[in-house]
């Protein structure tokens, strides 16, 4: 169950367009849409990164004392350390410095291990990227096909089955699904490994083996959402007159379905994908726990426990940037596919 699923989607879009418009005009339209999308995003980036940064300020921990240890924490040493860490400036200045450095790739270093945060993150990022990437692909494939088939054979047993499965899946949290999968496929039937991770550089087949179960666990929720959304939109679209119009022109049925019906029905489903992405990220934390994967979620848990603030801040910044980028991609895709009457977003 998604946490904020009743919130209106803020994406611009829908309704018509995109066809053989003169390239210059189309190009300008797309740039304009991306521009206005960015204009909205910029404040969002600042606000979320500020919230992230101020978490550190909320904490009562005294990083200087922690780093220096019991013995070394004399007032002068602490004062010097604070200055070195930049902690003697007001919060907003600290935030700005941090942000500027972050944009250049410097996210600071762990309080304890002195390992640069960006290093820790980049070590673990491929794990999450692999799983999330696979999950997205699976979600589109499974959710997409299920949604299309259910709509085309509306009212049939497949349709009803899909609806039932979707409702059931919405109630199952990703981690429960993950556990079920582990129980089924790793412990009982032993097809896929139950834990661990092997990078693609080491061995591609093993890499695939290890990401299948976690990827599948993550994708199920999103697949269900996509399938349900696509089915509803597609059923609505297939009843429209323009499907009849396309048919009576003698266009082959597959073309009518994909080029005409699906093109108009896919918008909301794509929006769902962008929408569910943060949820999928949250689920990846579960997946990492269940499948013992050395990913960003584990890093977060560890550093949260030890109150290693720079790591936490860096992680949160990276994650929310990720989400913002994905949203931008989704919105751009929608803009490319559709436009409103006068070429502007609404």
């Amino acid at each position, binding site marked *: 169950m998604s946490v904020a699923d009743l919130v209106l989607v803020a994406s611009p879009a829908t309704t*018509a367009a995109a066809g053989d418009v003169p390239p210059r005009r189309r190009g300008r339209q797309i740039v304009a849409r991306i521009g206005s999308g960015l204009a909205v995003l910029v404040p969002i980036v600042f606000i979320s990164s500020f919230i992230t940064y101020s978490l550190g300020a909320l904490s009562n921990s005294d990083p200087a004392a922690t780093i220096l240890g019991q013995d070394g924490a004399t007032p002068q040493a602490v004062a010097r350390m604070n200055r070195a860490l930049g902690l003697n400036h007001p919060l907003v200045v600290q935030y700005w410095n941090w942000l500027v450095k972050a944009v250049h790739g410097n996210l600071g270093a762990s309080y304890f291990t002195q390992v640069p945060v960006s290093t820790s993150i980049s070590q673990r990022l491929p794990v999450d990227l692999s799983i999330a990437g696979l999950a997205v692909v699976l979600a589109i494939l499974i959710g997409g096909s299920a949604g299309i088939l259910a709509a085309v054979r509306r009212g049939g047993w497949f349709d009803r089955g899909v609806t039932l499965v979707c409702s059931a899946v919405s109630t199952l949290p990703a981690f429960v699904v993950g556990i079920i999968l582990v129980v089924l496929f790793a412990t009982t039937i032993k097809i896929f490994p139950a834990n661990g991770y092997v990078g693609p550089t080491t061995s591609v087949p093993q890499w695939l083996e290890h990401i299948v179960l976690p990827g599948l666990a993550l994708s199920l929720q999103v697949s269900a959402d996509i399938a349900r959304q696509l089915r509803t939109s597609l059923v609505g679209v297939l009843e429209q007159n323009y499907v009849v119009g396309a048919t*009576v022109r*003698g*266009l*082959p049925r597959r073309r009518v379905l994909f080029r005409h019906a699906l093109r108009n029905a896919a918008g909301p489903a794509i929006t769902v994908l962008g929408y569910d992405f943060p949820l999928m990220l949250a689920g990846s934390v579960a997946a990492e726990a269940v499948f013992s994967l050395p990913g960003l979620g584990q890093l977060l848990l560890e550093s949260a426990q030890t109150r290693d603030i720079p790591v936490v801040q860096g992680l949160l910044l990276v994650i929310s940037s990720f989400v913002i980028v994905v949203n931008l991609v989704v919105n751009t895709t929608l803009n490319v596919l559709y436009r409103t*009457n006068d070429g502007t977003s609404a």
Partner: protein
Amino acid sequence: MALNDLLLDDPSVATPAVRGIPTREDVLRIDDLHVSVHEGLATAVRGVSLRVGAGETVGLVGESGSGKTLTCRAALGLLPAGCRIDGGSVSFAGQDVTAASRRAWEAIHGSQVGAVFQDPASYLNPSLTVGAQLAEVLRVKGRLSRQQARRRALELFGDVGLHQPGRVFHQIPAELSGGMLQRAMVAIAISCGPRLLIADEATTALDVTIQAEVIDLLLDLRRRNGLAVMFVSHDLAVVAELCDRIYVFYAGQVVESGTVEEIVHRPRHPYTKALVRVASGGDFRRRHLEVIPGSPPQVGTYMAGCSFADRCRFALGPCCSGEVQSVVVGDQHEVRCARANDVELSEELLPV
């Protein structure tokens, strides 16, 4: 004229037919068609027979619910969910399509028959430009290259009377007026050189002036390319302006058919007479609100005998029992009336 030469495989059909006289095979032939609705609960089309000859314009007139639209849809293989052909046959140029497969229909649609409907905007994909949609048909069915399709599409738009084809090409349906959209629809419908265009209430939603333009366009296409048109409307005046022959529909049956001359000036069926009276009021340009008292029977609630009997002032005993057959009363003029040959009825003339 070059319009269809590029794409028609059978160039000999391009000769325009002499008005009213069918040449070669009929483009469309419907025999004793029965169509049921609501999963067989009721029959909405009861034994309709009609034909459209090459290059002819044929009109189907009747109120809503009279079965004319369903007949059209059946002829196009586009019956809505729950509707079925229960009997009779439909053929295009001799090819029986009553039980045709989806694949067979894909070949027929566009190439042999085209269609335009009442609300053109709703029959076009709102997300794509009209040019893209026309070009798509030309590429997929006509197998033209992208370039060729584009050029051809612009030509077609010009042929149907759109003033700035280049501009219209890049516009989406929402940006065009009803008249322009209908022209674009016609362009798309005839793009693959069909011999028959079915127009289902094509002018009903348009302004009177635009109506006239669209009608002129259809007449023009008939003249230039020998395009046969089956024009469905509830408006007898418009049909009379455009068509060579008319079929009058009532309660799922054809109650009268004949040339436009005969129907307009010498209607024999009481319903047709009433229609003509309502439509004219003197001449066809002015229509006042004359009402035929009563209303047509609901689909499925047909009584024995003539369906019009309860509203007909000439109804007698034999009208209310048994099936009423269609009787020939003149050259190409048939009437489904039990009293068709009664002198009293035939002398009923239009008020001046």
